[in-house]
């Protein structure tokens, strides 16, 4: 019963359960929810162990340091949200039992692969797990068979697979670098081994490897210009899935980039990796922010906002230890805020039947609580004070100046301002204004809002202070990534 069983087993079990047990749909739904909470418990236990200084290891396959603990918590948390608020649980959502069963199977597999990716020590298996996430999530995008969702899923699987293949090429080249130095070794692909051998590795080869890895995992993280699959996939997928994808899949891909950055920084020395990371980060921030400006579909608006914030996190990684602290805090904030927003967008879509911003007005009057949380989430996403993003953006700007990159920070602030103005104009139109005809007023299934309200409160807490356990975790991550 090592630290990882509580984390990995529940999602696999519920996937299996959903696969085998076709009748008793409601019971399976409840068991699925409970198991997802067990996974969250496992993540918290892992977190507590890491905080107490221990580095839990299971054979030479699984290893969890601070970075893994943070990601594990994010993934399991969002997976639990998706389990409780996804298709097949609410009475009136528009998914038939078969679709709900498919969702439950693949969503749990999706969560399992992500958890495995962040807790494995072997970079090879990390690649296999992330490739598996592509496969499992691709199956769910066309849950509602429509021309748009098929198109979105095809582009997702094609671009995702091509991108991830390049990452494997990078992994192979890095492994070659190790082999040509210390000969073949069974544990060569373990991250700890690679990191210890890093100073002696050949810098030019590692540069080549890191380029492939950055482009590969960058595609999965939605960094520009490899981001093109993201808006289509997130706007066509079911709300719960896009919450998981936008919230944590991008974070897991960034986790892979961070792992390799830690190795590459030591081998190649400062400057090389940071410059490329800042370049791609700025590009994604620019494309994300500018696309928010005249966007007409609110789910795509949230998708582009994910691209923008992933770009921000990416820039943070290149700004030294302070930057990594800010980036990881921003990653945590973004996961919580974006998954909450997509789930709320799902409710709005269910009520208004249209994803067009023009079609939604008087949201505060139609669904006061959902509207209020939607507004709070939107304000959190654009970095307004009571919420955590403001503090992490401040820390990022401060790290930027400390790392001596004022021009980059100037660009970042300008682009964030553009994104801010874009979102505000749309938010105004959605929240206020007359109630459109044929839209029922009233909250509907209210209990689903409780977890989302908890997310909003968590964001507000992160806005006012960074609690000691999270602060401790983030400081440890900064030590790992940028010693």
């Amino acid at each position, binding site marked *: 019963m090592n630290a990882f069983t509580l984390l990995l087993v529940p999602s696999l079990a519920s996937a299996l359960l959903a696969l085998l047990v076709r009748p008793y749909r409601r019971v399976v739904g409840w068991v699925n929810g409970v198991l997802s909470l067990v996974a969250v418990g496992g993540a918290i236990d892992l977190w507590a162990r890491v905080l107490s200084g221990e580095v839990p290891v299971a054979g030479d396959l699984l290893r969890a340091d601070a970075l893994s603990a943070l990601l594990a918590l994010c993934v399991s948390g969002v997976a639990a949200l998706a389990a409780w608020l996804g298709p097949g649980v609410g009475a009136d959502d528009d998914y038939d039992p078969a679709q709900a069963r498919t969702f439950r199977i693949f969503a749990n597999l999706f969560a399992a692969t992500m958890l495995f990716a962040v807790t494995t020590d*072997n970079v090879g298996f990390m690649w296999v797990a992330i490739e598996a996430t592509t496969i499992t999530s*691709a199956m769910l995008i*066309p849950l509602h*068979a429509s021309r748009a969702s*098929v198109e979105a899923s095809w*582009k997702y699987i094609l671009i995702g697979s091509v991108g991830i293949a390049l990452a494997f090429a990078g992994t192979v080249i890095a*492994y070659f*670098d190790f082999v040509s130095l210390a000969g073949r070794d069974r544990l060569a692909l373990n991250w700890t081994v690679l990191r210890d051998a890093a100073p002696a590795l050949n810098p030019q080869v590692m540069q080549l490897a890191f380029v492939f890895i950055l482009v590969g995992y960058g595609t999965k993280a939605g960094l520009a210009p490899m981001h093109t699959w993201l808006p289509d996939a997130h706007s066509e997928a079911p709300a719960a899935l896009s919450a998981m994808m936008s919230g944590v899949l991008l974070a897991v891909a960034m986790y892979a980039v961070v792992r390799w950055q830690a190795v590459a920084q030591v081998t190649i020395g400062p400057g090389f990796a940071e410059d490329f990371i800042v370049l791609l980060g700025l590009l994604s921030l620019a494309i994300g922010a500018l696309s928010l400006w005249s966007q007409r579909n609110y789910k795509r608006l949230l998708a582009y906002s994910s691209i923008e914030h992933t770009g921000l996190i990416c820039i943070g990684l290149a700004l030294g230890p302070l930057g990594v602290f800010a980036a990881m805090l921003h990653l945590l904030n973004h996961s919580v805020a974006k998954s909450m927003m997509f789930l709320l967008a799902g409710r709005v879509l269910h009520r208004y039947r249209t994803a067009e911003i023009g079609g939604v007005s008087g949201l505060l009057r139609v669904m006061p609580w959902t509207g209020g949380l939607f507004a709070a989430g939107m304000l959190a996403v654009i970095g307004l004070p009571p919420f955590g993003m403001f503090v992490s953006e401040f820390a990022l700007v401060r790290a930027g100046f400390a790392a001596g990159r004022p021009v980059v920070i100037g660009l970042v602030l300008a682009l964030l301002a553009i994104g801010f103005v874009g979102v505000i104009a749309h938010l105004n139109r959605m929240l206020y204004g007359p109630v459109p005809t044929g839209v029922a007023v009233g909250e509907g299934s209210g209990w689903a809002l409780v977890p989302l309200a908890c997310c909003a409160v968590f964001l507000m807490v992160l806005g006012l202070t960074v609690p000691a356990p999270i602060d401790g975790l983030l400081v440890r991550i900064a030590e790992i990534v940028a010693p």
Partner: protein
Amino acid sequence: MDTLFAQLVVLESSLALLFGLGMLWRRGVPAYISAFLWQSLVLAAVAATVGYFGRERELYLVAALLVVVKALAIPWLLRDMERRFASERELAPYVNTATSLVLAGLLVLFAYAIMRPVVAASQLPTRTGLPLAMGLVLVSLFVVMSRKKALTQVVGFLMLENGIALLAILGTYGIPLIVELGVFLDALMGFLVMQIFVYRIHETFDTIDVDQLDRLRH
């Protein structure tokens, strides 16, 4: 001894690259499938050669897997799909054949340039094949990018995986077995999912021309 081993490996790698270039030249889908089949066989041969000369027992297992999965199973599935959509000949690709072959040549040259430090750092006899492997990777990227039909894009993607496998075998005499198996399983699963999607595209759009898939804009 090593010179024979090195020459044999370079011969087989260049054969694999030639089959990749063959895809750019031919127009019909059956030709694509047969090119992929032969390429997988050559790749299995490379694995066996390195296994024999480099005394790596595991590579024999890899070679066997390559033959069974990539030379037999996948081409059979591909032919089955091809029969289903026989009516759709591959339309003129985005780039006409002459320019795409010139571009492929340039990509191989570029591969040589970027692999120079890798070849320098490697002491293995198979190091001369590495640029060819990278060339195959870049060419297959170009193929995926420029084909119009979903089916041909899938074959291009499979060719990309072959290129990377070749790179792995030449560079490191094969990555640790467990990981190799995981990669193989992923490749297979990926192909199956793509296959499902091709069928679904055919159902909803009743064509597999990816150009029709452009409704999701800005």
